[in-house]
């Protein structure tokens, strides 16, 4: 380790925030760009599964709540691309990598939303798992990232409560509604557990990321925490977690549970999830169809600048 690297690590260890213009190791920068970019992409792709139900929301209030939520997600994307930009990468560069498949987004968004209870399950389980991942990141070492996470976590926990509220309406509703709620839980349970990533035992990057405080907890710790918090919530709803091996372990003061099917996880990452083609396709289409719009705005901006320059020159 160079002197600079040692000094950097000491700052991190002391809990100081690293700010954009300060020196940082190239690996730190790269890892952050990947992590923040992937998170930003997840927010914007994450508009789609819920966007799928906006036109079919069952009441005006639910429609408004869902619109507000999807709007928040786009807003989170904006914060995060801005945070990534402080590391020297533009939003357009990151989007290009998303569209080419070079960068990923969270695999959870490759699952379809098939009934209205999915709007509950996504809020409750998907946002719930996201928060579990993100709360510790409020203490991450990179200042802009940490501040973005504080803002995002506040809104996400609001989304999670709204999701749980939808789940309650469904689980305590008509028999058909309860069936939809159970169906949603059945389909989202294991994908939600996968959101924490495979066990860190198998991950090479984790140790370095934890030293840099880009990653705060291990995947397994967070997954366990998520299960512990979620099981009683499911019980309250009267729904059954689709895992026969789920049982309280008095000794570890937590639940034992089945591992998700990691082969499915890797298939989805490879592009074979139920909706990979649709999700990425929708974003690429939006970008391609929107080229004339962006070009038009740029052309106007150039003309306007030229006009201003002409006025200044004439004065």
């Amino acid at each position: 380790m160079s002197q600079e690297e040692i000094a950097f690590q000491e700052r991190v260890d002391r809990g100081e925030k690293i700010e954009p213009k300060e020196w940082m190791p190239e690996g730190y920068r790269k890892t952050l760009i990947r992590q923040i970019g992937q998170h930003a992409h997840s927010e914007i792709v994450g508009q789609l599964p819920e966007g799928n139900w906006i036109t079919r929301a069952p009441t005006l209030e639910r429609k408004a709540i869902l619109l507000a939520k999807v709007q928040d997600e786009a807003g989170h994307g904006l914060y995060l691309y801005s945070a990534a930009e402080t590391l020297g990468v533009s939003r357009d560069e990151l989007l290009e990598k998303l569209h080419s498949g070079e960068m990923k987004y969270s695999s959870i968004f490759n699952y379809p939303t098939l009934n209205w209870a999915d709007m509950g399950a996504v809020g409750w389980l998907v946002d719930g798992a996201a928060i579990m991942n993100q709360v510790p990141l409020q203490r991450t070492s990179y200042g802009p990232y940490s501040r973005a996470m504080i803002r995002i976590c506040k809104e996400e926990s609001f989304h999670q409560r709204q999701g749980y509220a939808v789940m309650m309406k469904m689980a305590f509703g008509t028999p058909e509604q309860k069936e939809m709620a159970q169906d949603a839980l059945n389909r989202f349970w294991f994908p939600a557990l996968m959101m924490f990533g495979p066990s860190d035992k198998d991950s090479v990057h984790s140790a370095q990321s934890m030293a840099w405080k880009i990653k705060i907890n291990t995947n397994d710790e967070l997954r366990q925490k998520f299960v512990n918090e979620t099981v009683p919530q499911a019980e309250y709803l009267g729904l059954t977690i689709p895992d026969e091996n789920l049982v309280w372990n008095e000794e570890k003061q937590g639940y034992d549970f089945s591992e998700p099917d990691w082969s499915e996880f890797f298939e989805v990452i490879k592009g074979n999830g139920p909706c990979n083609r649709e999700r990425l396709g929708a974003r690429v289409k939006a970008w391609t169809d929107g080229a004339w719009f962006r070009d038009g705005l740029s052309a106007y901006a150039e003309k306007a600048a030229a006009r201003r320059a002409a006025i200044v020159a004439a004065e």
Partner: protein
Amino acid sequence: KPAFFDWLCRMGDNALVLGHRTSEWCGHGPVLEEDIALANTALDLIGHTQLWLGLAGEVEGRGRDADQLAYLRDAAQFRNLLLVELPNGDMGVTLMREFLFDAWHHACLSWLIAHSQSPRVAEIAAKAIKEVTYHLERASDLVVRLGDGSGESHARMQAAVDLLWPYTGEMFKSDAIEAELVKAGIVPASETLRETWERTVSEIFEEATLDMPEDGYSHLGGKQGRHTEHLGFILAEMQFLQRAYPGASW
């Protein structure tokens, strides 16, 4: 009273159907800022729907609330302008429609705030106008920038004008239902809003280097429940859950 109910449905249905169309863009916008702005516009419009249809339900006095009016009427009972139910087309058509509607919407709400003899109507208008003012500013700004942008963006915006223009005449067309409410001083006569609208539109079009078409044939009927073929498909989608699970609580 039936006339008042009908007119309130016109206001509410405009907001509902345009909100629906706008929300179809969610996650599919040309830049992230547009995704946000479009979701926000749709959200505002759904909020207005709740206010107008809520009052409509009260006025009707048959116990229907805003949700029941939104979700349990078929196309022939809808009273929105044809303009708002047209397919989105490209972003140029969507923005141009937004602009043409907002310019009318703003003029209408302004009148209601200043003159309506119904305090409830004036109150809703006062709430809605803040958001509509913003919608109009945003849409005007984009119409100018895209109209006076690249060759392609100009051509698309002009094509959007030409496509939508025959659907604007309906905004200024009175009928017996309206006449009754005009007499009561509750609502403006449609034609009185035309001047303000034309001023807004012509100013912005001039800045946007867009041509204002000659007034020609107007497509009519939305306010009387004779719609385009598109509305039925919108409602089939929008109303599915309420229709499929009657009486459920969501």
